[in-house]
């Protein structure tokens, strides 16, 4: 990544993809049938830190939802804003690093933003994704996915904080990002449900373990503690 990381303007570029993304962010609705029930979807911002809370009841078994969320090789299926993905090997067996480049849009202004997250399953069974700031355009970020099996379907809760390092114009940028993030996560929830329910229906279990993933050696030293 080039240029100063502290202040970067959201730069519009003359390209169909940016126009399409901008239009999509305004008008997009999931083009497939969905059965999920959205319980909560909130995005707030305070001092440059975005907080995202999404909760939904999905018509899909919990184990298949977990499988979709941990299928890091195919994580691009969850959002059309993801334009690059890569699974990075670490020396720890209990966690995976995933690099993604996403198209972040605030109104008609779009730019590609890179982040690397360390993903691991907590003892509770929840999934945690923590941003690695040194390799990301975010100062910090932590997300928790909680999946609860119910009598019919599952409950999926997502709670995250996200602190972008790139500059966002405060007056128009922040509300636009808030709106864009909210729409993005609602769409992602719908896609998770769709993929999980399709896989459950055909009893599909894709190989997604780290050992089988496309891995790239990282230069990060092992933490012995």
């Amino acid at each position, binding site marked *: 990544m080039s240029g100063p990381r502290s202040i970067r303007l959201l730069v519009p570029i*003359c390209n169909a993809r940016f126009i*399409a993304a901008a239009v999509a962010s305004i008008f997009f609705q999931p083009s497939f049938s969905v059965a999920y029930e959205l319980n909560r979807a909130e995005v707030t911002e305070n001092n440059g830190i975005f907080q995202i809370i999404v909760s939904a009841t999905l018509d899909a078994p919990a184990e298949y939802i977990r499988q979709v969320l941990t299928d890091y*090789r195919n994580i*691009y299926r969850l959002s059309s804003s993801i*334009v*690059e*993905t890569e699974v990075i090997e670490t020396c720890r067996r209990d966690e995976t690093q995933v690099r993604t480049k996403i198209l972040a849009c605030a109104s008609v202004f779009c730019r590609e933003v890179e982040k690397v997250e360390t993903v691991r399953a907590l003892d509770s069974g929840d999934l945690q994704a923590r941003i690695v700031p040194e390799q990301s355009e975010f100062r910090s970020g932590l997300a928790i996915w909680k999946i609860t099996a119910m009598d019919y379907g599952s409950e999926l809760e997502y709670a995250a904080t996200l602190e972008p390092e790139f500059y966002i114009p405060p007056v128009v940028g922040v509300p636009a990002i808030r709106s864009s993030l909210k729409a993005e996560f609602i769409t992602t929830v719908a*896609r998770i449900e*769709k993929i999980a329910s399709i896989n459950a229906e055909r009893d599909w279990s894709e190989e997604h373990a780290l050992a089988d993933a*496309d891995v790239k050696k990282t230069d990060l030293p092992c933490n012995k503690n």
Partner: protein
Amino acid sequence: MKLYPLQPMLLVIMLTSCAAHKVSYQHDIAPVLESQCVECHSSPDGSGYRAIGLELDSYDGVIKGTIYGPIIIAGDSRRSILNMLVEGRAGRRECMPGQSQQGLSDKKIGLFSDWVNQGALKN
């Protein structure tokens, strides 16, 4: 309203820089799909078809995409899964064509990108 003389010139430069050679599905895209993709992505026995339901032996199949959803966003190759996979932007294992096939040349990758950016037309 104040007019800035450079603005029309910049607009022309931006628009012309977005122009590209017109790519034909029949002449440029279908032959590549046929030679490097259809072996796996055809029903009923192709491994790529069995895995994700993707048929690449017809325009309709390309546009329909997989059982999970479309692989093309017309006009936007950067966000299209088809382009992501042939360009290797989703990791080496997901790079297409997979298995015994060689990767696409830069020229062919460019054709796919231009075709999608031009609207993924059946031309």
